[in-house]
């Protein structure tokens, strides 16, 4: 074990942490909106809405994230009409290709979590809300959504952790996040075990923090339930 190398490379690899966290935060925020939209489309009862949502989730969950990233980054750039369109301003940048791919991925997975959460809200609650004279929108915001969040949170915490790990693929599109920097160092020092141990422990710390935050949120929601 080259401990000194591990110590030195820790600081270099840590420089990738802001990018990793940025990718996770931006993609999860965009992804949650996408997920809510897709989940609502799925349970809308309207075939024109639910069918596209169903196939979207099927497509994204059924293909590897690595291939999706290749497709968005290297695939779309093959088409001249895309390179000449206004989309190219965004698609030209590896950063946004990464964000788009991660957003689509987490959007598809989370929509299923949210759909499960919404479906778990009992009919009685909805009927009671109607009996109290609440509108459909108010029922959704005040009754369905809070219950859904509480139901979905444990599964969604899992999704957040998966997202952090998914960012490790982003280095294939020239972005230097944690794994990208680690691989660069390995290619110069030929010490994969040491460097990956360092990179792995950084992921562990990030995910530990996320687990703590999710636990905290779960406890908060639990307290609300008790009162």
């Amino acid at each position, binding site marked *: 074990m080259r401990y000194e190398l591990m110590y030195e490379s820790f600081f270099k690899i840590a420089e990738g942490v802001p990018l990793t966290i940025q990718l996770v935060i931006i993609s999860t925020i965009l992804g949650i909106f996408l997920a809510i939209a897709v989940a609502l489309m799925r349970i809308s009862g309207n075939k024109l809405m639910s069918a596209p949502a169903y196939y979207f989730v099927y497509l994204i969950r059924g293909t590897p994230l690595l291939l999706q990233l290749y497709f968005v980054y290297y695939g779309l*750039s093959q088409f001249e009409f895309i390179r000449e369109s206004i989309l190219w301003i965004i698609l030209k940048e590896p950063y946004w290709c990464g964000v788009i791919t991660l957003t689509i991925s987490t959007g598809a997975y989370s929509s299923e979590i949210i759909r499960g959460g919404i479906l778990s809200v009992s009919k009685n609650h909805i009927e009671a809300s109607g009996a109290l004279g609440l509108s459909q929108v108010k029922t959704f915001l005040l009754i369905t959504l809070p219950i859904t969040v509480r139901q979905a949170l444990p599964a969604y915490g899992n999704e957040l952790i998966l997202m952090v790990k998914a960012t490790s693929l982003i280095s294939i599109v020239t972005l230097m996040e944690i794994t990208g920097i680690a691989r*660069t160092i*390995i290619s110069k020092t030929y010490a994969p075990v040491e460097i990956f141990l360092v990179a792995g422990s950084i992921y562990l710390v990030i995910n530990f923090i996320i687990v703590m935050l999710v636990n905290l949120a779960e406890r908060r929601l639990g307290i609300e339930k008790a009162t």
Partner: protein
Amino acid sequence: MKNLKLLIIGLAISAISTMAFADGHWSKIRIGTEGAYAPWNFMDSDGNLVGAELDLARDLCSRMNAECEFVQQDWDGIIPALVNGKYDVIMAGMSVTDERKKTISFSKAYMTEPARLYTTSGNPLTTFSSEKNLNLDDDGNTTAGTISALNNAMKGMKIGVTEATIHESFVETYLDQSPTTYKTQDEMNLDLAAGRIDVMLCDSGTAEAFMETASGSDVVTFGPNIFGGLLGEGVGAGIRQGDADLKAMFDKAITEAAADGTISRISMEWFNGKDLSP
């Protein structure tokens, strides 16, 4: 007493097995290559490893009376995998450099070609003119002019290299901006054609192979031939430092193949008529 006996027997066994090892050890040689660096080594449409180095390796193996086995390995792990014994030799368009010699040893160079800069036809760099050659072995005063002219011309542009290559070291050492790094040449080719990078630096042979394809038809070269110094002494076979016997076998076979014109023939066949023999 019993322990001593065991020790003697143990030593005897290990001596015999070492002898056998040295004798028949290299009847089979496993060669690691990347398979993503046309025309040196790449995958054909059926997924077979082909290229100049594959042909050369077969020729060298037959000169050494050994059987060749090829192993595909991604570039960024190609040296660690040699050190860890996944294969015995690297033949992957790898330049012999002092930096790499700290970890592995090399046969003598079997081919050599300069690095060059590439851009696309709309770029102002296409009109860049400079000395014909940039030899990094020349002293700093001679090379400084060409290097600063390059830096001025490429100000604010994105320069792509494949990671962990001599080209990455060149950009980091001599150029003002840090490079955009790619895992493979193929990926960098796509991004140059798409306009995500303005310039790519790589071996001329592999770039010329790309320029012959439809998606590379827009690619043009500019600037000097770059060689010497940290760009190394040409492309050689990487061998573990402990395997001096294997290195000697390769050196001998390469000398023979260069002398009888085999390397020239293989090179001209794969590199569009160019002779890269040392």
